[in-house]
């Protein structure tokens, strides 16, 4: 397991999202609170944007 060192804010729910020290732009991470898929837009400062989502269909 890699250590968490950077903290960014989830653009969806404002939770703190930890990023690995070696995180890179355009990597996808998951928000620990709302479980959105987030894309790393920049690492300095650490910024996240919502990643395009696949539609989930939970049925009729």
């Amino acid at each position: 397991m890699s250590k968490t060192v950077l903290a960014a804010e989830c653009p969806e729910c404002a939770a703190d999202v930890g990023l690995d020290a070696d995180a890179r732009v355009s990597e996808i991470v998951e928000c620990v609170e709302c479980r959105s898929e987030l894309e790393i837009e920049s690492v300095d400062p650490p910024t996240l944007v919502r990643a395009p989502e696949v539609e989930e269909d939970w049925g009729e």
Partner: protein
Amino acid sequence: MIRVAVVGAAGYIGGELLRLLVSHPDVELAAATSRSLQGRQIDGVHPNLRSRTTLRFSAEDELDHYDAIFLATPHRETMARMTEFLGLARTVIDLSGDFRLASTAAYEDYYGTPHTAPDLIESFVTGLPELHREALRTADRISVPGCMASAGILALTPLAHAGLIRGEITVDARTGSSGSGAKAGSENLHAERSGALRVFAPTRHRHEAEISQATGLPVRMTATGVEAVRGVQLVSRAHLAPDVDERDIRSAYRAAYGDEPFVRVVAHRRGLHRFPDAKILSGSNFCDVGFALEAGSPQVTVISALDNLVKGGAGNAVQCLNVRYGLSERAGLEFTGLHPN
């Protein structure tokens, strides 16, 4: 005999149509299509039909022409191919969601995709005999409402149309697993789905739009998957117009359903079975509707239940066929339901 075909016959709605049609006294089931199972006997996936039929699934391109054709195919796909389907039969009865909403904007909003056959929408009659019996007698394009939608529409329209309720309606819907069809995925894996209380649509379930369209009132609906294979139950709340009491509500329901073969009003003061419960409706074409008032409260709680595959789908479609072809409305739909079950 009415000669009919079922498209999408390998699925759950398709299978339920087959069950009802093979026993229907006035119908000849001429074809049942499946892309994945063509050539196979239909009782391989619908084992309840063993000894009742020797029909095999056919390919869609083997279809010729029928009095009526039932479409039990997924939405999107159905509208994409509707023109083709319309050429196959005098009467097309569509069970998908594609032609239920009059507004293309509502369709796009709720289904997340633009409607691809907007010109056809208006030609479809809503397949709910309780509300559209006259139009159905001559309708050749019929769009059957959604399962939860049917339960909501049958529960709420008598009150809405009589002006007994007003303002926003909230609906808490519960559904069994057959409501999402026969396609396996982690969401309906037995170990995950069994015993679940899964709020899969906390807001904006598609059937909300259908109930709103039928009642003319704004609707907010939440849908939860509960432990059941078949069955839908809705608990709805609405605001009463001033001075409405129990007698007004009973009398609105009596006016609407006193002569209906498949809607029963169940609102008892005593006993174990005081309100509609889907448990006893499996396999039957009934929609049970009930309600409760509270002294001093301006709200009414309305409870309704049905079997999603029958009155919420295939049974309702067969009832429409019966109306359209002047048959006894109960034909092929006599099964009472089981207790205990």
